[in-house]
């Protein structure tokens, strides 16, 4: 199996958390996994893009036109990284409102900020929420709900119940997209 994910967002939105969760999930499936994260300067509210490569890879970075999935925690950051998606095959799961433009990639769009403003879930769990949308709507996503739940639990057992609740809420919400 080979599956490449770009996670785009703004420093502080928890993109690195998702890298960790997906690496743990890969480990649970006994798959190889290489990822890369942003630390330091790029964390200070600036644009952040992290990579996760599941399967037999040698390098942690992702080239243009190679990603199977782009999880965008914010709309413009999604567009800024759109060139990393595979033409004709890649899916973008994006947190954006109705103004998000039509693009030539399979787009799953949800206005997670609006839901957080309505206090439907805490904004700190935006990353987990978007992972839930991914689980529900990316048919090629290589992990099951159980594997992601287990990975979230291994990551932080204390926070896991709340995170898993948000995950399931997102899976529910994804039905209405």
């Amino acid at each position, binding site marked *: 199996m080979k599956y490449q994910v770009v996670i785009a967002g703004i420093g502080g939105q928890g993109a690195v958390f998702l890298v960790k969760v997906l*690496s743990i999930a890969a480990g649970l499936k006994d798959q190889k996994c290489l990822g890369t994260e942003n*630390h330091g300067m790029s964390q*200070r509210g600036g644009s952040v893009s992290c990579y996760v490569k599941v399967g037999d890879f040698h390098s942690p970075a992702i080239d*243009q036109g190679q990603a199977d999935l782009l999880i965008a925690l914010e709309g413009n950051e999604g567009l800024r990284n759109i060139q990393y998606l595979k033409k004709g095959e890649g899916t973008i799961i994006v947190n954006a409102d109705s103004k998000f433009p039509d693009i030539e990639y399979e787009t799953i769009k949800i206005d997670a900020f609006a839901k957080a403003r309505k206090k439907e879930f805490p904004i700190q769990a935006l990353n987990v929420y978007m992972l839930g949308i991914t689980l529900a709507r990316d048919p090629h996503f290589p992990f099951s709900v159980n594997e992601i739940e287990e990975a979230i639990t291994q990551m932080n057992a204390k926070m896991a119940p709340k995170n898993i609740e948000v995950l399931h809420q997102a899976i529910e919400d994804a039905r209405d997209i």
Partner: protein
Amino acid sequence: MKDILMGNDAIALALIHANVDMISGYPGTPSSEIIGNFQKFKNKFKVEAYSEWATNEKVGFEVAYAGAIAGRTTCATMKQVGLNVASDALMSASYIGLKGAMLMIAADDPGFHSSQTEQDSRSFAKFAKIPVLDPATPQEAYDMVKLGLEISHKFETVTMLRPVMRVCHAREICEVDDKLEFNPAKGEFQREISRWAAVPPAGRFRQGLEQFERLEAIKEYNWTELIAPRVKTLKGAKTLCLTSGTGDGYVKEALEEMKLEADVLKFDMPYPLPKEKIEALFENYEKVIVFEEPYPCIEEQLSSPKLHGKLTNDVHKIDEFTKDKVLMAFSNAGLIEKNEFYKSEKYADELPVRPPNLCPGCPHRDVYYAIMKVFKKKKSIYPSDIGCYTLALNQGAIDTVLCMGASVSMASGFSVADPSKTVVASIGDSTFMHSGVSPLLNAVYQNHKFILVILDNSTTAMTGRQKTPERENPNKIDIKKVVEGCGAECYEYDYTPNVDKTIEFMKEIKAKYAEATGPVVAIVREFCVLDKERAPEKLPHVFAEVDQDKCVACDICTTQYKCPPMSYNEDHKIEIDPFLCIGCAACLDDVCPTDAFVEVKK
């Protein structure tokens, strides 16, 4: 056993597994997590080991080096530009050698992600004549920590590990030792004056000759232990790719995915290389391409008309590797047609830029805002330094950034060169302790008249909030006393999130400066908003919103104050993003000329 590790976790774990019981360093992205993780593993495994944050990289190196002279297994960590600071010690240590073992970790940053240069520490190792190992992944970093310490002990030399950002901050499922048997070497200094205090010229001349002999022996080791086993696996293609570190992964993936025929020979130790033995291999190939980043360290050690690389303009010379650049090199070397498989169109319309910024509620923002209000741009020069506060560039409050501590010495230089302007320099507390003290002493010594603002948030914030000297030892170290000890006038301000008060303080400093004959130092006692110990009690948790009728879209808040939650909405009025606002209330005071920022009523 298998473990999911970030590169810097893998390095720290390997240090413990390799019996390192003395470690010192100064934080710097991408190296910073190594010492923090070492401390974490040390506590987890309950082993006795000494670990410290030194005041700078030179100090850290010397502490670890003395440990190795005394027979211990030690480590010093730094980022690549930190190596510049430690280089004075390294250059001599390379002549002298050691008894125990010492791994010096210099983490590089191809692509300038968090650094002011793209310098290659492997090339520095070559300059210093010490062996260097270049890992491609966290797993290799784990393995090479152990190998590096073995080499260091065997050849009695400081050995460098050079991971790049894409190794330090990569994450991989690694195979690591199941069991920990921690048996550190005993520290016992043995007097050997002719070695540890070799006097030039005779003593150092002799050590210089020994250094050459040592290098020849390491080259032989490199060949028999590391290179020759890999030569056996070469398949006899027409093209040979020589790789080192991350360059290897990009090449292997590109060859596999594009189904290109080429042999790949990876050098784990890119210096010192057994030149003749490697060049003899070229006979069987039509072309040889070197893939390494960022400098041509391997390429400069070899010579052949078959060789393609950065020096022949076939491989990119600046920025990080990509697989696209591998194909470009193949095409430049005449092996394939131009290939754009790894290219795809960016989003065509312009997207709002999102540069890194000071956090919402960061006290630095208020201090720079006050400096700009009180010391007008046309009549001032603002040298600054390396840290979070460098981001005040966004506020237009910084004119120069050079290297650690340079704000102070450059303030001296500007005060001499352009005395018609007021020089207002700024530096963080950690950077001041790192390399700001000696230029301040010089300024007093030479009577240079300028203002130095020390932004004291009592943490090394940018690199992950490591403890600073004053924080670690508050009853003994006081920046104010250090400044006064240098002989400079010093004024202290206890920051509160009230812009009016901060401006008042800067006005007082301006008055003091008018009468001064030497440097005037202002210490602003701040806090970092990410500091879980201090920030909660310092922040008032009073949130702001915008009175839309009062906002006249004057741009002052978005250009001079620049707090991330503030942006224009569809009606072209400022709005505050409630998800980002941290409740510092600072903007309620002096920022808006029409008082449009108002408190959110609960």
